């Protein structure tokens, strides 16, 4: 509870800050974001070079804070679990233990990377890099505000689906290259689980795409403005899409191999799953990738169903607060829910996992695709008369 209050307080303080000082909002706005490219061009650079350099800066602007966020998020999550388990959590390194993650990071950084003698060396080392890279590339299309996005592409949602489906390769390759029993089982589980839940995620997303009429994430968010009764910003408030929001939330936990779907690294069965043979930085890369993915899934939940950078209620004064704070607030809430679930729900058995994915989510999401498209046909396209 303390941790929850802490998060809410921090976010509320940020919100207040953004509201009180207009400059902070300006900092995250389009003007600043687009400024880099224009600035380089004005300095006499060729257009494509300016574009390239500007993009590089944008990438760093997203990736570096993200890595920092991962460190803090791990600390926060440990605090949440501790609170739920009536423990204290990390409280030694730094004030309130805030520097715990950095201490952990330093530790793994200084350790030796051990490569098992029978491992497939190249693949063994590539696997964590893949996990880490894939977790980062998805952020390219996430809009933090109108226009504040690295690549504002038409098929953004498809890009996310495509990129997130690559995440499984890190696990599979790690499992196979380790040349060890447990990682291999873990790889097999990961492959099956990923493919199963991607199906329902695809169908869930289809409902959103149908309603928004676009695959561009900014367009999807803006389409949610005043979506319900002209008052609430978010597809999730729509009774036809709320069940899909729940399915998406659960599937996103399965997609990131989080409890209760963490069979991939079920410690009672598979030691540490695909990470069993990993040590030092290669191990840390898995962790960074995993948490970057978790934050990403929180962002996706916020963007697809709960209005992204829009305030929850379509009320003019709320727009004074920069959109990025709303997005972070929503991500924070989802992150808390992820941690909450992890601390309270027991792990699924493998057949139960498959049952949930194929026998419940798939038919349910399929039915809702039909429902949503039928509803849209009647309300938006004059009863299907083409």
């Amino acid at each position, binding site marked *: 509870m303390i941790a929850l209050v802490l998060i809410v307080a921090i976010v509320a303080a940020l919100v207040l800050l953004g509201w009180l000082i207009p400059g902070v909002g300006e900092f995250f706005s389009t003007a600043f974001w687009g400024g880099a490219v224009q600035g380089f061009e004005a300095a006499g650079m060729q257009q494509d070079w300016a574009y390239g350099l500007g993009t590089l800066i944008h990438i760093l602007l997203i990736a570096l804070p993200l890595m920092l966020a991962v460190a803090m998020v791990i600390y926060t999550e440990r605090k949440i679990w501790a609170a739920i388990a009536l423990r204290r959590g990390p409280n030694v390194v730094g004030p309130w233990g805030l520097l715990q993650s950095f201490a952990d990071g330093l530790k793994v950084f200084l350790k030796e990377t051990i490569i098992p003698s029978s491992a497939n060396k190249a693949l063994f080392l590539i696997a964590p890099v893949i996990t880490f890279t894939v977790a980062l590339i998805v952020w390219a299309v996430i809009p933090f505000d109108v226009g504040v996005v690295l690549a504002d592409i038409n098929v953004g949602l498809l890009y996310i689906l*495509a990129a997130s489906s690559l995440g499984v390769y890190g696990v599979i390759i790690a499992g196979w290259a380790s040349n060890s029993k447990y990682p291999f089982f873990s790889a097999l589980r990961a492959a099956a689980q990923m493919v199963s839940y991607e199906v329902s995620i695809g169908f869930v997303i289809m409902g959103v795409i149908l309603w928004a009429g676009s695959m561009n994430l900014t367009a999807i968010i803006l389409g949610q403005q005043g979506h319900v009764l002209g008052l609430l910003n978010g597809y999730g408030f729509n009774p036809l899409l709320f069940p899909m929001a729940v399915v998406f939330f659960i599937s996103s936990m399965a997609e990131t191999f989080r409890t209760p779907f963490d069979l991939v690294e079920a410690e009672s069965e598979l030691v540490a799953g695909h990470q069993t043979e990993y040590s030092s930085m290669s191990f840390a890369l898995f962790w960074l990738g995993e948490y970057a993915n978790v934050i990403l899934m929180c962002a996706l939940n916020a963007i697809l169903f709960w209005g992204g950078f829009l305030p929850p209620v379509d009320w003019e004064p709320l727009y004074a607060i920069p959109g990025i704070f709303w997005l972070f607030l929503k991500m924070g809430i989802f992150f808390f829910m992820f941690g909450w679930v992890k601390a309270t729900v027991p792990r699924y058995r493998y057949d139960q996992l498959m049952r949930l994915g194929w026998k419940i989510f798939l038919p349910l999401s399929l039915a809702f695709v039909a429902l949503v498209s039928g509803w849209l046909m009647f309300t938006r396209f004059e009863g299907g008369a083409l």
Partner: protein
Amino acid sequence: MIGIFAFYLFATLTILSGILVIFARNPVHSVLWLIVAFFNAAGLMLLLGAEFIALLLVMVYVGAVAVLFLFIVMMLDIDFAKLRSGFTRNLPIGLLIALVLLAEMLIAITAANSGPLIGDQPASTAQSNLSAMGELMYTRYLVPFELSGIILLVAMIGAIVLTHRDRGDVRGQKIHHQVRRDPEEAIRMTTPESGKGVEL
């Protein structure tokens, strides 16, 4: 300039990884090179402005098909020495087929320089290729589209027919039974005397 550089990068990598698919000694490596090839092919599509197809390629082939390939290949127990023993025997046939295909491609490319018999320029519209494809698929090509759906249905029925077994000796978990159970009949409150125990 970046466009040209990107094209040659993707094209070279596609061909290189295609070659490595064949020459990799380990089948798992072959599949991984195949994935790299898919990736670069998707990059080439992107350069052509077909972003929808490019991402579909990544999503379907890299994200699903190749995962299953890898899944199967990882579990194979292949004797590589035995596998390669037939190499010299099958080499002439393989070379022949390769030569025929090469000749065909060369001929096709030289013939293509004369241009198609019907001048068919792609219509330039403001439509994104996603909506253009969607519109074609649901109007002009409705019939093949629906039939493809039936093909997938056949694949599904086939997979079930060929692999599903009714095993009588397995007691599966029936979750709806568990959920439907009433606490009233599932729980019995007793206060046994000490040393007596409970009659079950």
